[in-house]
């Protein structure tokens, strides 16, 4: 009886190891390929694991087993995390597409044979994940008259301005290009009015255009135009007075010339008039 009991005790681990001898399966549940993770949020990777037990590598007396080990996480080929629990993996990633690879490793740190892994390629952006970007000039109004230095109030929708310091393009993020008469004047990476100074007199067309981090226009192009009339400031008081004095002097001069002519005609001898 004792022998049977002992055999039973030994049979339990043997039978369980036999039951777990199925090849492990690793599946990434979320995010999906090409999914856009918006608002600069962290990427949360959830995965499903069958026929594999996650354990801490390097435990005392640990042996290599085909269905036991840990999970290595690689982001864009760089080793990022070592996971020993089935729980969501939180990854803080910069803007752009990223390849996330999960790979099962044995207790010796080596990949399983055959290799068991799963990868996904989401896109991270500081902008919103959904929605079509838009831009609108709220001030000044089209065809209005202004001075030479003008603040442009711009309203953006579904687009986030970021510092373009070399990060890859990402959906719904970038910066704002301000163009005066088709020439780039300013680039804004903060949500603030565009201040364009010293515009020439006359008609000026201001274009605000949303561009990607690498300065390329969005596809399709998203921009807004406004044509404004720049005129010199209202004449100053000295200018007005000067002009008035000039008119008065011209009038006096004309009167004097006419009176002089009359006087000359009167003073001339009668024969001269014939």
């Amino acid at each position: 009886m004792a022998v049977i009991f002992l055999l039973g005790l030994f049979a339990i681990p043997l039978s369980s190891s036999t039951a777990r001898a199925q090849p492990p399966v690793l599946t990434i549940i979320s995010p999906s390929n090409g999914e856009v993770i918006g608002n600069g949020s962290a990427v949360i990777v959830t995965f499903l694991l069958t026929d594999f037990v996650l354990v801490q590598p390097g435990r005392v007396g640990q042996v290599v087993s085909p269905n036991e080990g840990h999970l290595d996480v690689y982001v864009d080929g760089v080793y990022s995390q070592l996971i020993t629990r089935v729980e969501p993996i939180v990854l803080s990633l910069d803007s752009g597409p990223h390849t996330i690879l999960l790979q099962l490793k044995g207790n010796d740190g080596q990949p399983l044979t055959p290799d068991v892994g799963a990868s996904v390629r989401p896109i991270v952006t500081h902008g919103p994940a959904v929605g079509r970007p838009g831009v609108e000039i709220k001030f000044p109004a089209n065809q209005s008259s202004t001075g030479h230095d003008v603040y442009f109030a711009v309203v953006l929708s579904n687009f986030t301005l970021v510092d373009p310091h070399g990060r890859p393009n990402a959906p719904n993020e970038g910066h704002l290009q301000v163009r005066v008469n088709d020439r780039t004047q300013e680039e804004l990476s903060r949500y603030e009015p565009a201040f364009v100074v010293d515009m020439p007199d006359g008609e000026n067309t201001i274009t605000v255009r949303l561009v990607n981090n690498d300065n390329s226009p969005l596809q399709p192009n998203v921009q807004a135009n406004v044509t404004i009339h720049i005129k010199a400031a209202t004449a100053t008081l000295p200018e007005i007075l000067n002009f008035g004095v000039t008119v008065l002097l011209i009038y006096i001069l004309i009167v004097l010339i006419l009176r002089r002519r009359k006087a000359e005609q009167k003073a001339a001898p009668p024969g001269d008039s014939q």
Partner: protein
Amino acid sequence: MTQAMENRRRHGGRRRILLFSLFLMSGLVALALSGSIASAAPPTLTIVSPANNSIVGNGSPVSVIFAVTDFNLTKPGTGGLPNPNVGHVNVFVDGVWTAEAHQLTILLDLASGVHGIRLQLVTNNGTALRPDVTSSIQVTTTQGPVNGQPTISITSPLPASVRGTDNAISFELRNFALVPPGGPSAPHEGHIHVYLDGVFYQELTSYEPPHFGLNDGSHTITLQLVDGAHRPLNPDVSASVTFTVNPGFGRAPDLSEPLAITDGLLGLAILGLLLFRGKLVKR
């Protein structure tokens, strides 16, 4: 009677076998337990990632992954009596205790600059092992990207153009993050020194275009990338633009002066006429 004795002997034999089995089992369990802990080899600790002297860019947290051997990681305070093969990891950043970990990945949010990271195995009660088991690396963190050469270019005004008095300088920056000066130097981050005609004009720590009120003539504006200690990058990264300022550019002419001259001339003419009229009357 003989059968009763036979039965008793059989029962006694079974009891002995059972007791022996129990003894054997407890011995096996004790052997397993003692063998797994007491006779374990000395633990080791290795930082697997990041590599020593590596750069972590874009302001990302540093993900420190380490490996242990012959050491069971347990949540601090839950591993029972102190044991040289059971415990957790103390994390030191720049010599200062920062955290304790019982998972093999540690995320550290570090400011820009060079940092020394040291991990130390400790027992459940937080005491260091004997001999001490540690592993150290040095990493550099930056708000800028890890790769790529920093560049700067001026997009407005255009070279050799004629401009008015007020000017905004627009620029494009690549592979360089603008941060306030004063912090430790880190690769691919810093600020911009602005020079007007070779003289220092201002510092830029954001992408806002700087404004200039300039007098007549030719002017050269230079934007130079510098690190947190105001030192130019090596090699130097800068951009310049030279343009001409004409205050009347794009403006309607100022009529004050011509009007004043005209007024003077008209006054003289009137005066002359009045004097001439007097002579005419006498004649």
